[in-house]
């Protein structure tokens, strides 16, 4: 009888199925689906990082692997080990994650124009939107790297809506800008076409993208109009512009979505928009 138990306990579990790895602060959470196992005893699962070979163990999914270096990319494999010391074959490798320190500023989402044909005056109506924005932050920040597909010379702007609102004339825009040696001011009030911001180079035969950083304050406070401010600039080869931007939406509704359009044809391939949340 003892001999039979030993044989059953010595059976090898199947390889676990790897799930999604999620980054933490010097740690990762590695999900998996358990092995098939008809033998006797229990299975403990071990996730191992690559590089560094750091491990974490658990009887159930997910497994936490600690001691990772923030800023380093890792993948993970999972192995099941019976209490008789029999190990499964390792799972496939997980997705790559990069641990980062917890802080008061978190990345929520990134939108990138992936339409590779949008590189010329193709009239591709590329725009981006952030939806289902969490209400767990105090302020929002949008970081843009953007360019227009329009083949005209010069530059335009982007414009931003909140919650897809385009009626009631809630939007106002102001900026002070410089191009070459000229300084100018620009104001729009009581508009339905969003808050204009940023420097958006049109499609030139170079790699010049405009950059803009816009911050939206107290976006969940229903007693306040929504105020944004930022800075932006670009050099598109023939000239350049730099701007102080401000804007407002008189709507007091919590912002749960942001839509950004180009004041031209469409955002060019590889234009990127990152949304961050700041705690308060």
């Amino acid at each position, binding site marked *: 009888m003892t001999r039979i138990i030993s044989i059953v306990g010595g059976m090898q579990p199947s390889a676990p199925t790897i799930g999604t790895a999620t980054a933490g602060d010097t740690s990762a959470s590695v999900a998996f689906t358990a092995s098939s196992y008809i033998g006797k005893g229990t299975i403990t699962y071990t996730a191992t990082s690559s590089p560094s070979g750091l491990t974490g163990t658990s009887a159930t999914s997910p497994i936490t692997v600690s001691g990772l270096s923030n*800023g380093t990319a890792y993948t993970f494999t999972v192995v099941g080990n019976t209490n008789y010391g029999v190990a499964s074959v390792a799972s496939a490798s997980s997705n790559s994650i990069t641990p980062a320190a917890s802080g008061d500023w*978190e990345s929520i989402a990134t939108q990138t124009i992936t339409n590779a044909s949008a590189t010329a005056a193709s009239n591709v109506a590329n725009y981006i939107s952030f939806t289902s924005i969490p209400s767990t932050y105090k302020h929002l920040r949008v970081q843009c790297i953007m360019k227009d597909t329009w083949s005209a010379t010069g530059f335009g702007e982007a414009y931003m809506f909140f919650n897809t609102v385009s009626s009631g004339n809630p939007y106002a825009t102001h900026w002070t800008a410089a191009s070459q*040696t000229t300084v100018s001011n620009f104001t729009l009030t009581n508009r339905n076409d969003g808050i204009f911001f940023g420097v958006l180079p049109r499609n030139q035969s170079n790699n010049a993208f405009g950059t803009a950083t816009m911050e939206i304050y107290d976006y969940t406070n229903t007693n306040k109009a929504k105020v944004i401010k930022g800075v932006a600039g670009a050099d598109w080869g023939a000239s350049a512009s730099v701007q102080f931007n401000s804007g407002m939406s008189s709507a007091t509704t919590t912002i749960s979505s942001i839509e950004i359009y180009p004041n031209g044809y469409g955002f060019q391939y590889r234009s990127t928009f990152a949304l961050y949340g700041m705690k308060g």
Partner: protein
Amino acid sequence: MPTATYNYILTANLTSGSVNSVTFGSGGTLTQAYTDLVLVVNGGASNPADIHCQFNGDTGPNYTFQSIASPGTTIGAGYTAAGNYNQFTTNAYFRSGYDNASHTTITSYTNPYVNKTALSRSTHGGSAIDLIVGTWKNVASVTSMTVFLSNSATWTSTSTMYLYGILAA
């Protein structure tokens, strides 16, 4: 799930009082793990100076910068089309005896498809502010960054530089 971001990388304390330049990522070792870099400079210079920057040791005329500056009660603007360095402050207002601070974001510094752009805001002892967009006309990843003062000025001994990395989801 939101991803933690805005991570401290390192500090350069310029305590010797005779330093003109600081290189981040000497030999091309600047971390490539982030989406954007942020450089915060707080301090002063031995004599009025601008803050300049070169990426990857490139000393050629491959930089442009557009500024808007407000010294005192005036406002002005300037553009350089083919400079030998990126410029983070302007009009030589970064000087000793004043509290000077500069905040520069270098966006998408590893993106192989875009020229590298630095957007910088600076204040100079409460007497001037400026905003500058500087472009390095190169799509290479920024693997080193040398920050130095013009006019052969040196950093005052209490000057400090802080480098941060922003990681987008």
